[in-house]
């Protein structure tokens, strides 16, 4: 049973990671910095509970906010470039963050034990959950509560003008500028929101594994972050969830019986999926049953003069 709870926890944190990239991808930007943001969130939240003994909820919110601020600061220079340049700039930022934590040693004495990031050793004993007697299903429920809050928030944003503006910028930057949208503000806003979500996700991740180290937050994780929303389709937040279930559930856990070969199949299936469904598993548009109902739809318009 614990195995399935563990799996659900992995789904949860990866959904957050994917959603953080989803927001940025809506504006048409491919950010490889999400793993870096995730790392910042993980270390910040870990420091909050393990080193300073604060409650998990404020810890992850602080982690989210810190990450959002950093994402905003990085976004200003980085989002002046786009396309391949942005991929590389954000990749460089992500690696910079990872290597920063690789070199960071900052430990405090808590109850006769040194805790805190310790360079290449990583950050051990982020044991908030076991220390406070949380059962595995408590943890799982907590994670999914956060995931659902984030999903509902993003789903709401998608129905507002902000969501339409993000998609407009993603579709045609020149046209978006011509109708008076401030591209930098929109993109940096998306990056900041993405940073917040990645920070939350990272913060939770640190507590589920209790030991984090820089190697986890590399290029591979950044790639996964963008892979979820693209594979799932940018139509709605549900695409990202489906992709997480597909990759983490089906490809990684479901094919476990294939042993080593499963990883091979994993890459091949992504290649195949993108050839068959280039707009993602759920496509570009929100699934019909989630789309807005026409409110008070008028009787068919007066004859159009055309």
């Amino acid at each position, binding site marked *: 049973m614990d195995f399935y709870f563990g799996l659900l926890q992995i789904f949860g944190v990866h959904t957050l990671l994917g959603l953080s990239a989803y927001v940025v991808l809506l504006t048409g930007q491919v950010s490889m910095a999400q793993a870096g943001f995730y790392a910042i969130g993980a270390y910040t939240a870990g420091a909050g509970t393990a080193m300073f003994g604060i409650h998990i909820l404020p810890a992850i919110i602080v982690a989210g906010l810190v990450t959002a601020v950093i994402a905003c600061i990085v976004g200003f220079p980085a989002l002046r470039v786009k396309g391949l340049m942005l991929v590389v700039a954000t990749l460089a930022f992500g690696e910079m963050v990872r290597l920063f934590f690789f070199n960071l040693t900052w430990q405090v004495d808590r109850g006769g034990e040194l805790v805190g990031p310790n360079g290449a050793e990583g950050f051990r004993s982020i044991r908030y959950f076991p220390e406070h007697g949380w059962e595995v299903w408590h943890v799982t429920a907590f994670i999914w509560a956060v995931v659902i809050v984030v999903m509902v928030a993003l789903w*709401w*944003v998608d*129905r*507002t*003008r*902000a969501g*339409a*503006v993000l*998609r*407009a910028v*993603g*579709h*045609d930057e*020149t*046209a*978006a*500028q*011509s*109708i*008076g*949208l*401030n*591209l930098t503000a929109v993109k940096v806003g998306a990056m900041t929101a993405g940073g917040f979500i990645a920070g939350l996700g990272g913060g939770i991740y640190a507590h589920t594994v209790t030991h984090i180290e820089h190697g986890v937050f590399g290029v591979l994780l950044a790639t996964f972050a963008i892979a979820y929303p693209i594979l799932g389709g940018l139509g709605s937040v549900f695409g990202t969830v489906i992709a997480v279930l597909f990759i983490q559930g089906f490809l990684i856990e479901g094919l476990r019986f294939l042993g080593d070969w499963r990883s091979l199949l994993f890459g091949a299936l992504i290649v195949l999926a993108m050839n068959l469904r280039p707009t993602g598993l759920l496509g*570009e*548009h929100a699934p019909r049953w989630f789309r*807005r109902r*026409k*409110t*008070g*739809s*008028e009787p*068919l*318009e007066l004859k*159009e*003069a*055309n």
Partner: protein
Amino acid sequence: MLTLENLSKLFGGVRAVDDVSLTIREGEIFGLIGPNGSGKSTTINLITGLYTPTTGKVTLDGHDLTAMAQHERTSMGVARTFQNIRLFGNLTVAQNLWVAQNGHEQRRAHFLARWFKAGGEHGPDIEELLRFSQLHSKRDLQANALSFGEMRRLEMARALASNPRVLLLDEPAAGASQEDAQLLAERIRAVRDRGVTVLLIEHMMELVMGITDRIAVLNFGRKIAEGSPAEVQMNEDVRAAYLGGSHKNEELVHA
């Protein structure tokens, strides 16, 4: 109201726009014509801020727009359409208008209400614009599912969504039939009657001669004539420019 003062734009060594000065008066339909490559589109791009001028300035009601970013110009009251239609094909018709609500008045609305209120695509302004452009029955369609003519109408409606003071139309009749051009002319007049000044760039002479109050003619980036349609048609330089450059002279004479 909209003035260009000694505006020039160099691309490398080429003077795409060369020392052009224009004054467009409030409430008129002003035509900007010229042979291909004479700098008409560049002029529009200089007014909207897609390009920065090499020298000269653009002012709207005495406010200098030259140093402003594109989005600031929109809130000052400048809106445009594109020669090759640029809609947000991934949004619905109504959403296309919704995202364009960036005018001065609209910017004063509360931040949260402006960005994070759902259902704003059903606002009264949008309904009115949808009716005005006869797109009401298509309001929930994806913009890329529209017909060519509908796309043109939607693009103009989108430009109007920011409550502009001046609307720049970049060849709105390109690819349109004669009848379509008739309807377009009516539509442009209707836009003017809403209190929006129109700057029209166009190849189709009949359209331009029929509806504009005044016309300026560009050739090789320089303004060679300005005046009423009748005056411009009589102008020797204009005739030479068109006779020398293309077959358009026929249209010019007959219109």
